[in-house]
């Protein structure tokens, strides 16, 4: 049951990551088009500013994908010398701590968004972008990450309580079995 949930989350986050990736590709296209336009003395303007927003969105929405693909770096020196239950304890403990920190981040991101909404803050640039437009989706990305981390942690704890600790390695271990780079 837990593994089925993890599989669903993986599929879901692959789709999210793909959308983020396509957005990134779109940003690259936009920058290149702007460079081309400049050669004929025209320009969209504001590429640097938009690139900053793109980067914030890429980092908040991509995090959960990296989590489910075991992409976030962990130091494996002690853990590698353990096995079975003990190793699973390392993994579950690490996931609990991570979930706590990510949830804290997500909660603390709210005041930033709230200020932008209250003040109607706009970027101090020629575009004068209303910051809420970019900060709300950015904040949602961190909420998404926190939610995914919580679900993964719950799945791992549940497996552990049912005496199947070794099965957690496939989704909260230190490294992916097969790295996505081939």
């Amino acid at each position, binding site marked *: 049951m837990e593994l089925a949930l993890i599989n669903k989350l993986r599929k879901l986050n692959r789709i999210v990551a793909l959308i983020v990736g396509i957005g990134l590709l779109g940003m690259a296209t936009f920058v290149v088009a702007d460079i081309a336009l400049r050669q004929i003395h025209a320009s969209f303007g504001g590429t640097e500013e938009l690139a900053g927003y793109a980067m*914030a969105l890429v980092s908040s929405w991509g995090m959960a994908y990296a989590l489910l693909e075991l992409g976030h770096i962990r130091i494996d020196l002690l853990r590698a010398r353990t096995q079975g239950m003990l190793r699973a304890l390392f993994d579950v403990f690490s996931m609990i701590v991570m979930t706590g920190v990510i949830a804290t981040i997500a909660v603390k991101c709210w005041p930033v968004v709230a200020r932008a909404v209250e003040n109607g803050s706009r970027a101090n640039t020629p575009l004068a972008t209303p910051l809420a437009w970019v900060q709300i989706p950015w904040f949602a990305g961190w909420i998404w990450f926190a939610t995914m981390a919580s679900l993964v942690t719950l799945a791992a704890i549940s497996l552990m309580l049912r005496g199947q600790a070794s099965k957690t390695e496939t989704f909260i271990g230190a490294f992916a079995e097969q790295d996505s780079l081939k």
Partner: protein
Amino acid sequence: MITYVSAGLLALLALSIPVGIVLFLLGFGVDQFYTNFPLSRALGNMVWSSSSSATLIAIPFFVLLGEVLVRSGVATRTYAALDSWVSWLPGGLVHANVATATMFSATSGSSVATAATVATVAMPQAEKLGYDPKLFSGAIAAGGTLGIMIPPSINLIVYGFLTQSSIPQLFLAGLIPGLGLALAFLAVTAILCTIWPELGGHRRVFPLLQMARALIDLIPILILFALIVGSIYRGWATPTEAAAVGVAGALLIALAFGGVSWTMMRESLLGTIKVTSMIMLIIIGASFLNFTLSSAGLGRELTAFLEGLGLSPIGFIMVVVLIYIVLGFFIETLSLMVVTIPIIVPMVLAQGYDVIWFGILMIVLIEMALITPPVGLNLYVVQGARKSGNLNEVMLGALPYCLTMLAMAFALIAFPDIALWLPSALN
């Protein structure tokens, strides 16, 4: 405070908590124990301001560029071509790793992306041809660090920004030390493999005709280099924008070689998001830790320490080198630069040193930090591309190159012109 952070870092990392998360935890700790101010209230602001950076978008662009080259087969062909030219040296294919890394450094602004690109194409060869994994993977991790010395370089841009020094000059100053390091890596590899032949693989001599034909396979990467660096120096794009030009160029090249497919694009994008997220969690965590540390007075602690030593300029610079080596063990490199530049550079300049020269010296030290454990991104990138084996092997294999970098640091101190000659000659 320095002691607390170092000890806490080691303990939390040993528990195998993700590195980025550990940095946040240490930041919370500094907030809790070393200041009376509610620093954690700024957490959300730090996360926003450190991630919404146009400069950083060069990271996913350069990673994507590498992924496209790898998955379309262009990188493999480049690697094979360089292999046919350098594998007659003692150490064989290990030289191809260094040569390929050097070549990709000229198209990449980041060391992590350079290492990732080379690791992905080289690792399968190591197993096929039976290489000792230590030196083989160490050479990739070390060669990858050239990505920030040979222009373009994200780190030099950051240095130029923080010290208000000229980025074009910094780029020029990095060229000779970068190529010098590349040659030194080749020499060290050859020497090691002459003494202990089992470290390298077979020396292979390729027929002249095949070598000549291999040159054709180097053309795509040379075009890409011309496109990226050319677009900067010919006046089309800023260094960050050049990364996007690189992506477009890589896609066109891949298209020309028939290497573009829906699957390949999907996997490239997914790989890019995964690597970028991994790096960004660490960069955001490091920014928050940096914020708490400087709020709690790390700058004063360091300044008081350095001034208390009462050293001569040369003694002072030696202490600075030592500080970077030690901090480089623990702190992610971009954050290491951001944390230390505002504190260290003014003191270095006050001792009469040149700001461009020190930028290059710092980059050499930062390159070392990239391959020293426990926080050494390049080690993990290379380990990530391997399918088996232990991280210790990569660390051990990187050690000789690490010492080479140290030698380069001393050479720069003894002969500043290694860095300064080119910018002044072209002025």
